């Protein structure tokens, strides 16, 4: 992003327009006078689809679908697949913080997933405590992991970051394979459940629990995206120099995104460990990182509903497209290229218009 040249370029054509009423107001701070009122956001009539895609109740609808799914099919296998899909949604939402909000390409996201799963799994198994008790420790470890990998590399060009994260992903996987404490190539077994061994072992119950946890994770990630920090991430993604000029410490902000992604990934890892009760290195290969990335990109970078739908699609694809099993990853690769060329904003892009709610000024002006 080194715009090394401050060279003058041809100035674009400018359309003359009628002069609006201008109010000059002297004094300290911003002037109080109001200009023309904000135009209502609804211009052309939105289609049913658009209205559905932008409804405020989207989150509730999604949650209802997820909670209602076992009513349609509730075989142990189906519940297993759906639980995995929910965990995958959490991963995708976490990666979306890094890639979608902040525009940093992380190709080793599975590493944070692994760090969370192993930290939780090893602690719970060794100390014989419920997984949930390891959450504070997992939080600390994932944050540290985020800093360790982010701190030296976030100062670099974004493409270097991509490769370094790729290398980091491999480092974590190889460490898990070689170390004694992680059980070597065969991994660790018999991880206690979230609340100990005998609680919530019913697949359906565990599915509902997972859905609720993931729903909270999705909500929190979306809230982060709409905050001061979330805006700063988008500023960095759009133009680092302009963001700096506005006082955004781009390095710190990027590190925050990275840590956020690490925490979400790590927590998903704990869920994963609870779900399978056994983890081993092959679960954390580059393939996983790439699949999560695909979910984010296909769904729509920066768009929470898009990413959720993308993640559900990617994780259910092997079940739905059984005949295409051999072609699946090939198709994903081609799809990734096509989406970037034809529709880089993804299938369900982040809204380009602010809603009337967020754009409205308060009734009485704050002086």
């Amino acid at each position, binding site marked *: 992003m080194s715009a090394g040249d*401050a060279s003058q*370029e041809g*100035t*674009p*054509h*400018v359309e*003359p*327009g009628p*002069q*609006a009423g*201008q*109010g*000059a*107001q*002297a*004094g*300290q*701070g*911003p*002037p*109080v006078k109001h*200009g*023309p009122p*904000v135009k209502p*956001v609804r211009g052309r009539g939105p289609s049913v689809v658009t209205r559905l895609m932008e409804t405020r109740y989207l989150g509730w609808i999604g949650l209802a679908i997820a909670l209602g799914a076992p009513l349609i099919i509730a075989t142990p296998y189906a519940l297993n697949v759906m639980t995995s899909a929910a965990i995958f949604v959490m991963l995708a939402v976490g990666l979306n913080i890094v890639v979608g909000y902040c525009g940093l390409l992380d190709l080793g996201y599975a590493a944070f997933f692994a760090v969370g799963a192993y930290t939780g799994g090893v602690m719970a198994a060794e100390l014989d405590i419920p997984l949930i008790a390891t959450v504070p420790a997992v939080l600390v470890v994932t944050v540290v992991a985020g800093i360790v990998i982010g701190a030296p590399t976030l100062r670099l060009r974004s493409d270097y970051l991509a490769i370094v994260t790729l290398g980091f992903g491999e480092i974590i996987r190889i460490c898990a394979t070689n170390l004694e404490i992680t059980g070597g190539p065969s991994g660790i077994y018999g991880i206690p459940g979230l609340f100990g061994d005998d609680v919530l072992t019913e697949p359906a119950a565990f599915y509902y629990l997972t859905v609720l946890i993931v729903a909270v994770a999705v909500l*929190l990630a979306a*809230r*982060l995206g*709409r*905050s*001061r*920090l*979330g*805006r*700063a991430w*988008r*500023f960095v993604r*759009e*133009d680092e*120099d*302009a*963001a*700096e*000029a*506005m*006082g*955004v*410490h*781009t390095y710190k902000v990027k590190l925050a995104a990275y840590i956020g992604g690490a925490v979400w990934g790590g927590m998903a890892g704990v869920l994963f460990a609870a779900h399978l009760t056994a983890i081993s290195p092959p679960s954390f290969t580059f393939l996983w990182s790439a699949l999560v990335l695909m979910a984010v990109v296909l769904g729509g970078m920066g768009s929470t509903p898009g990413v959720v739908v993308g993640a559900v699609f990617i994780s259910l694809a092997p079940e739905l497209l059984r005949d295409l099993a051999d072609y699946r990853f090939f198709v994903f690769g081609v799809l990734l290229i096509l989406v970037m060329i034809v529709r880089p904003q993804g299938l369900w892009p982040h809204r*380009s*218009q602010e*809603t*009337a709610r*967020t*754009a*409205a*000024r*308060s009734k009485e*002006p*704050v002086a």
Partner: protein
Amino acid sequence: MSERSERSGGRGGSSPHKEHSMTLLQVTDLRLSFGGVRAIDGLSFEVGEGEIVSVIGPNGAGKTSAFNCVTGFYKPIGGSVLLDGTPVTGRRPASIAGLGVSRTFQNPRLFGELSVLDNVRAGTHLWLRQSVFDALLHTPRYRRSEQEATDEAHRWLDFVGLRGERAGLVRNLPYGEQRRVEIARALARRPKLLLLDEPAAGLNHTEKAELLDLIRRIRDLGTAIALIEHDMGLVMEVSERVVVLNFGREIAVGAPAEVRRDPAVVEAYLGRDADEEELAAAREQVRGGREEVRGGTD
């Protein structure tokens, strides 16, 4: 450091060179080089509180480079930049912005894929009180601060007189409106010093007249302005002082009227044949003439 003088009635161009009590920005003996080429070679100038200072000079004279040194985007190899007495050379742009400096870019650098409002909200980043936990839990403070940011954005968009959709993407606005948004964004930072890099470039007459008015209204808020501009009419009209650069150093400093008469300036800036009449003509043109005057073309 003499006492603060009364601000003249806003007709900067006609006001005499005044003493400014508080020096806001002091650039001393600034030097910058790109691979052996001296872009800035011993530049010194200052901007007082609430003052409008124009930096002019031919293309390649080092104007934008000087701005980039002041705002931390370039690291000068020598000299000092003091902001309110604090040395800022070697600091990151963000931390210099934190000291109360805002800028616009020669070619507008807006966040194209974000809404107009979000662009201006960027200016509120430094002073908006909102923690990550406020955002996660949607505390009352979160709601309050978000509303505050939105209100502030609207207020500055009103102030710069933006026409057009505010909730939509900024890249859908016409060029002239984008320049307004960039200024609004810089103002939402509530800066003590605003650096404008060729704000009039590419604007038509009406827009230039509005810009002139806008710059004065910004100054009337108490914000000091440093202005790089090629439009001589605008410069002469609005500035209280003019710094003329050539080959990376200042060749003249003074009130517009003084600078205009300086033979070195006339020669360096407008070429050998330019004279008073041409400048006067240029000045006329801003007030409603027919053609844009672009100085600095050699």
